[in-house]
């Protein structure tokens, strides 16, 4: 059995690396539970989207080459993000149209790269997970995962296997939360309008926990909900699926250090 274990290179994503490493460990746990061997190449930083979406092709290509080299030889590359996985899977090959050998490598990497939850269900055929987490959750479909990779039913399917979890769908769960990478700081007022709409739908769902598969969107939505003083916990779906919710939810104080809600909800 051991010799057939698929070797996974975990693409941590820059936000998980910097902001919320527990999501990375949740991904490792889920992959190992499903019979994989997981390695984390150190020569990774980011998928290159900030440069790519700002029109900076040269830096994008340099970063993509770095990722291609770092993840050479793995059976699969898995990211706890639809957005970063899609960058590698759908956008890297197009960066090297004028360089056939690199393009071939980019295509090879693209074929091996997957978003975490859909990888579990669609490639590893994971049918169920176990988690002691309980509560009413609502799930936000992040744009790239949904529209570029078709991640929609997979997280709901696994969440539904948790006995303590009830999914309460919000309205417009598939509409952008307004994060959009640099968009949220380049166009803060429009982004605010979008995330305000999103926060209202989250609150109206009646769920006590908001889940999604992309940390950027989660930070945006958590930040808005907390600014408004809405008491919804916000977590990456992998944390719940891996039964790793011991860390405080996004934007919540470390355990034992209760936040002064009044002073935050300005």
């Amino acid at each position, binding site marked *: 059995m051991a010799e057939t274990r698929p070797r996974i290179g975990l693409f941590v994503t820059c936000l998980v690396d910097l*902001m919320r490493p527990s999501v990375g460990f949740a991904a490792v746990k889920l992959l190992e539970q499903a019979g994989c061997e997981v390695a984390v190449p150190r020569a990774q930083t980011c998928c290159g989207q900030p440069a790519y979406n700002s029109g900076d092709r040269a830096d994008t290509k340099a970063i993509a080459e770095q990722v291609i080299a770092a993840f050479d030889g793995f059976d699969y590359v898995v990211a706890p993000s639809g957005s970063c996985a899609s960058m590698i899977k759908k956008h890297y090959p197009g960066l090297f149209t004028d360089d056939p050998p690199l393009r071939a490598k980019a295509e090879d990497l693209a074929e091996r790269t997957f978003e975490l939850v859909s990888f579990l269900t669609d490639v590893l055929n994971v049918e169920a997970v176990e988690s002691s987490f309980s509560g009413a959750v609502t799930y936000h479909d992040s744009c790239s995962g949904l529209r570029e990779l078709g991640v929609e039913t997979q997280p709901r399917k696994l969440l539904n296997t948790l006995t303590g979890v009830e999914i309460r769908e919000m309205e417009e769960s598939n509409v952008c939360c307004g994060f959009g990478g640099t968009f949220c700081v380049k166009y803060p007022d429009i982004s605010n309008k979008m995330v305000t709409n999103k926060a209202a739908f989250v609150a109206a769902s009646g769920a006590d926990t908001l889940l999604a598969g992309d940390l950027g969107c989660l930070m945006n939505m958590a*930040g808005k909900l907390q600014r408004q003083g809405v008491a919804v916990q916000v977590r990456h779906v992998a944390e719940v699926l891996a039964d790793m919710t011991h860390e405080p939810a996004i934007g919540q104080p470390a355990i034992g250090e209760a936040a002064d809600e009044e002073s*935050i909800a300005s």
Partner: protein
Amino acid sequence: MQSTSPAFKDNARDALADQQLQKALQNVKSGFIGKRAKARDRLPEFDDLRDASRDIKNHTLANIDFYLERYEEKVTESGGQVHWAATAEEARAMILKICRDVDARVVTKGKSMISEEIALNAHLEEAGLDVVETDLGEYIIQLRKEAPSHIIAPAVHLTKDQVEADFRHHHKDLPDERPLSEPTQLVAEARQMLRQRYLEADVGITGANFLVAETGTSIIVTNEGNGDLTQTLPKVHIVIASLEKIVPNLEDATTILRVLARSATGQEFSSYTTFSTGPRRAEDPDGPEQYHVVLLDNGRSEMLGSEFQDMLRCIRCGACMNHCPVYHAVGGHAYGWVYPGPMGAVLTPSLIGVDEAGQLPNASTFCGRCEAVCPMRIPLPKMMRHWREREFERHLSPKAVRAGLGFWAFFARRPELYHRIAGWKMRALAAFGRSKGRFDALPFTGGWTKHRDFPAPQGKTFQQLWAEKQTGGGRR
């Protein structure tokens, strides 16, 4: 039309603060999205038709010179005349000359975005002509001296209360007690005002949804029938259309028609689909004596063969803006020129320059909803990104953005250095944010923290923790 696209951010801020507009914009979501989805679900072959439509346009664009020449031959054979206009200025001059040649005083118009693009009304009015918009939405905004805010629903930025107020203000004979609160009453009122104008008109101008090369036919789709009266009652009919409206034959046109109305309004077909070929023949009971087609280029031939060629497949259904969360937030006028929403974000820089319209392709989260609903499968986000690349190459992006990006990329391209610095920074940030779990303000994050809190990082980076784990160190 003078663009205000460089002021997009200011326009957007004003739009977000405009309560009346925000109320009207709710109608975009509720009026279009569900109806399109239902129309799509009712037609199992809808996605196949999208593929077929895309292929038809790709073939046509690859052979556009052939089809346009064939089209001109057929128009000439049927007794009409094609005028080739390279620029907006040429098109305006041609149309004015045709009007003057018949001593026209009153000109009626069907809805035409090309006429907006070339700012035709202002030009004709300056020359002393009385120009009457006959599409209800266009009629309303003409009264208000506004530009359309949507390509198929020009007055969608208005509530019906505003329209009622406009009618009561402008229609002097309208009794105060006549009810005008219902859409049907507003339509009836506009119809009554317009009826006489159709009969007075010397020239009728319409746009075109398709030009058919095989037959020299132009096709328009409308829901009010105003296009038919505009083009059949006056003695001269002028069609104003851009080059890419051409399709090879009637079957191609009808294939694309099957996705057009469904994508636009969720109707199976528009109420009126009108084919016109040449002027009135001897045996025809009615129709114009003259039939002219002004074919506008205005930058489109430059798009052929470029990374923006796919945009020329656009059939102006409006589905992209109907589904765009940015359009929902700010409406069409914020975009600052003729074409709003995602299609405008790609097309406008092509037509008026990225120097002028660079904000538009930047104001997108790349959520991809536009591409997902586009009946012609136009990769809109990809082309917005191409505009950002052009901007970046030409150093048009803001200096601070370039500097920040350069700083970040320097580290992102050096993983060891990146991990070391990130480790220090995140631990410091985590130490500051630990008690609250988040920040309500932080240096250099004003765009974020103006509207939302910023979560504190957990502490050590994943890479640090992973390295510790590998060497047998503790997790925390």
